[in-house]
C-alpha cells in the first residue's frame, strides 16, 4: 500500500516535470525560429506592507508603469520586460532574502529598490556577488556609495553594481541646514533623530551645515523608531526654546512627534527630510500646519518632464498615490531599461550571455532626461542631480516652497 502510493506520487511528479520541461523547450524553439521576444525581468524590492507602505506602494506602481510603458512603446526591440515585485516589510533580513531570490533568477537583469538605507546595506553584498544591478530610488545614506569614511573625504566606491537616483543625506541634510538658516531665518535648532542609518545621517549633516552658517543647536535627542510617545522628549524641547525642531527619521514617528510637540506647547515647526514627506504624515498629525520637509528632486507636479508621468499614472488607475519616490522610481526603472537597450543594440539586437555585467557597464554611462530631471551617475554610482525641494504643510497639504540645486560636493572635498 505504502509502496504503491509512493509510486503514484513519483509518477505524477515525473510526469509533471516532464510536461514542464517540454513546455520550456517548445518556447525556446519558437524563440529561435522567429526571433520572438526575449523576456527580461526587473526585480523590485520595497515595503508594500507595514508602516512605510504608502511610500512602498508608490514605488511599486511607478516601476510597474515604467515597465508597462517600455513594453507598450517597444522601447527595446525584441525584449519584453516583466516586473517582479517583492515586499521587504522595511526589514533588512527580508530585503536580503528578496535580493537572493531575485539574483538567483537569471532573467533578472536589475533590481529596483529598496526604500530604506538599512535594507540596502543588506542587499548590496548579494547584488554585488551575483553581479546584478541594484538601483534605489530612495536610499540617501552616503555610506552606501562612498564608504563610511566619506566624512573625512576618503570617498571610495563601495559596490560597482549599486546605483541610486536619490541624492545623499549629506546633500539633503546640508540643504535643510541652509534652508533653515537662510530661508526660515531660524537661529536656534533642536535636533532629534531615530538612530537609524538614515535618520542619524540626515540629522548629523543638518547640524554640520546649520552650525557652520552660524546657527546654534540648543539641544539634541535620540529616540527609538518604534516609539509613539514622546512626551518626555517634548518637555526637554520646550525648556530649550528652539525656533525649529529638526527630526531625522520617518513619518510614522514624526507625525505623533510633531503633534505631541505642539500639544506640549512648543510653537517651533518640525522640519525633516524626505522620510517625513508623505501625505500620511499630515493624516496622522492634526497639528502638522507649518511643518517642513525636504525631498529629493523638484516636485514632479512642477516639472514639464513629469507631466506625462503623472498623466500615465492617473490613466493606469492605481489606487495609491505615487508619493515621494514615484518620479525617481520611474527614472531608476527607466535607467535599467535604457541600459538593457544599449546592451542589446551593441550585441546586434540580441541579449548577450553576460548580460548582467554589460548592463552594469552601460548603466554607468546612461544619460537621459527623466521625470525628475537629467539622469546620470557619477563615479560612486550617485545621481548627478542634486535638486532638492523644501515643502511646508499648508491647509493639510504639502506645498513646495523652495527648490535649488545644492552645490555639488566636489570629489576633492572642497565643499
Amino acid at each position, binding site marked *: 500500500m505504502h509502496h504503491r502510493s509512493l509510486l503514484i506520487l513519483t509518477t505524477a511528479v515525473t510526469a509533471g516535470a516532464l510536461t514542464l520541461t517540454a513546455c520550456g523547450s517548445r518556447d525556446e524553439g519558437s524563440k529561435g525560429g522567429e526571433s520572438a521576444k526575449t523576456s527580461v525581468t526587473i526585480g523590485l524590492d520595497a515595503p508594500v*506592507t*507595514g*508602516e512605510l*507602505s*504608502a511610500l512602498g506602494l508608490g514605488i511599486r506602481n511607478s516601476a510597474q508603469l515604467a515597465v508597462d510603458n517600455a513594453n507598450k512603446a517597444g522601447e527595446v526591440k525584441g525584449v519584453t520586460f516583466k516586473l517582479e515585485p517583492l515586499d521587504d516589510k522595511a526589514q533588512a533580513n527580508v530585503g536580503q532574502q528578496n535580493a537572493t531570490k531575485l539574483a538567483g533568477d537569471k532573467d533578472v537583469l536589475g533590481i529596483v529598490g529598496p526604500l530604506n538605507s538599512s535594507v540596502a546595506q543588506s542587499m548590496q553584498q548579494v547584488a554585488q556577488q551575483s553581479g546584478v544591478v541594484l538601483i534605489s530610488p530612495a536610499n540617501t545614506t552616503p555610506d552606501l556609495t562612498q564608504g563610511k569614511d566619506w566624512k573625512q573625504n576618503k570617498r571610495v566606491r563601495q559596490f560597482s553594481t549599486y546605483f541610486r537616483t536619490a541624492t545623499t543625506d549629506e546633500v539633503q541634510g546640508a540643504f535643510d541646514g541652509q534652508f533653515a538658516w537662510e530661508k526660515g531665518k531660524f537661529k536656534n535648532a533642536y535636533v532629534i533623530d531615530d*538612530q537609524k542609518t538614515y535618520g542619524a545621517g540626515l540629522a548629523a549633516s543638518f547640524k554640520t551645515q546649520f552650525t557652520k552658517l552660524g546657527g546654534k543647536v540648543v539641544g539634541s*535627542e*535620540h*529616540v*527609538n523608531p*518604534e*516609539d*509613539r*510617545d*514622546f*512626551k*518626555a*522628549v*517634548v*518637555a*526637554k524641547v*520646550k*525648556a530649550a526654546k528652539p525656533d525649529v525642531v529638526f527630526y531625522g527619521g520617518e513619518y*510614522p514617528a514624526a*507625525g*505623533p512627534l510633531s*503633534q*505631541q510637540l505642539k*500639544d*506640549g*506647547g512648543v510653537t517651533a515647526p518640525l522640519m525633516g527630510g524626505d522620510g517625513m514627506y508623505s501625505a*500620511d504624515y499630515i*493624516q*496622522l*498629525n*492634526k497639528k502638522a500646519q507649518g511643518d517642513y520637509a525636504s525631498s529629493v528632486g523638484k516636485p514632479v507636479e512642477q516639472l514639464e518632464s513629469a507631466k506625462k508621468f503623472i498623466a500615465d499614472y492617473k490613466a493606469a488607475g492605481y489606487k495609491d498615490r505615487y508619493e515621494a519616490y514615484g518620479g525617481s522610481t520611474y527614472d531608476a526603472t527607466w535607467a535599467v531599461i535604457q541600459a538593457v537597450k544599449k546592451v542589446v543594440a551593441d550585441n546586434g539586437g540580441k541579449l548577450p550571455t553576460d548580460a548582467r555585467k554589460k548592463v552594469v557597464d552601460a548603466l554607468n554611462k546612461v544619460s537621459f532626461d527623466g521625470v525628475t530631471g537629467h539622469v546620470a551617475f557619477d563615479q560612486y554610482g550617485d545621481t548627478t542631480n542634486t535638486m532638492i525641494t523644501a515643502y511646508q504643510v499648508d491647509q493639510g497639504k504639502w506645498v513646495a516652497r523652495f527648490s535649488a540645486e545644492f552645490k555639488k560636493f566636489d570629489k576633492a572635498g572642497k565643499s
Partner: protein
Amino acid sequence: MNELPQQLANGLILGAMYGLIAIGYTMVYGIVQLINFAHGEIFMVGGFGALTVFLLLPSGVNLLYALPLMLIGAVLVAVLVGVAAERFAYRPLRGAPRLAPLITAIGLSIALQQAVWKWYPEGNKARVFPQFKGDSFQILGATVQRGDIFVLVAAPVCMIALGFFVSRTRSGRAMQATAQDPDTAKLMGINTDRIIVLAFAIGAAFAGVAAVAYGLRTGEVQFRMGFILGLKAFTAAVLGGIGNIYGAMLGGVVLGVAEALATGYIEDIPGMQQFGGGAWKDVWAFVLLILVLLLRPQGLLGERVADRA
C-alpha cells in the same frame, strides 16, 4: 522653566496606561500562573474595536458622546478575544507542562497581529484614531493634553472598582480563594473554570480601556502597538509584584515615571551625558527592574512568590 512637573505628569499618564494593561498580566498569572504574552495583542484589538465603533458612527459626531460607545466597543472586542483565547488556546493545555501554554501565548500573539494586518481594512498601516480638539490644560505647571484626562480618570476608577470587586463580592472572594489554592477552592464548591474565565475577561476589559487611552493620546492605532506596550506592562506587573493587582498599578506608575525622569535628567549627571535621553529610557527602566528584583525578588508589593514560581 522647570520641567520637573511636566516630566512627572508625563510619567504618571504613561504609567497609568501601563498599569491598566499590567492588571491583565497579573490577574491571569495570580490565578493560573500563566504569562499571557498575547495580552498586548488583546490590548491592540481593543483599540481597533474602539476605532470600528467610531467609524460606524455618523461622521462629525462629538467625540465626547462617542467615547462611551467606543469604550464599550473596545472592552467588548477585547473581552471576546480574551475569553476566546482562554477557551480555545489555554484551557486545552491546562495541566500541560508550563512551557506549552507559554509558547501557545507567543503563537497567539503573532496570529492576532497578522489577523489584524491582513483583514482589518487598511490594517497594514497606522489607522487614524480620533482625538479631542482644543488646547491642552495647564495643571500645576504641567501641560496635559485633553485626551490624557481620560486615562487619569479611568485608571483610578477602574482600580477602585476592581478592589471593591475582589474584596467585597462573592465572585471576587472566590477569585482570591482560587488564587490561593485552586484545589481546595474547588472542594469548597467554587467553579474554578468560571473564575479563570472571569480573570481573563477583567484583564481584557482593562486592556480595552487602556487601548482607548492610547488611541486618544497618540492619535493612531496599528497592528504592532501591543507588542512593545505589552512588554512594558509585563515589566510593570513584575516590578509591582506579579499576582498583586495594586502592585500592577504601582509598578506601572513607577515604570512610567522612571522612563520620563531618565529621559529628562540622566544626561545632567556629570559623566553620564551619553547615556541620557529618549534612546536610553528603556535601558534605565530595565536597570530599575533588575535593582528592584535584586533587593525585593517578589516585587514592590508582591508576596509568596517562592512557593509559586
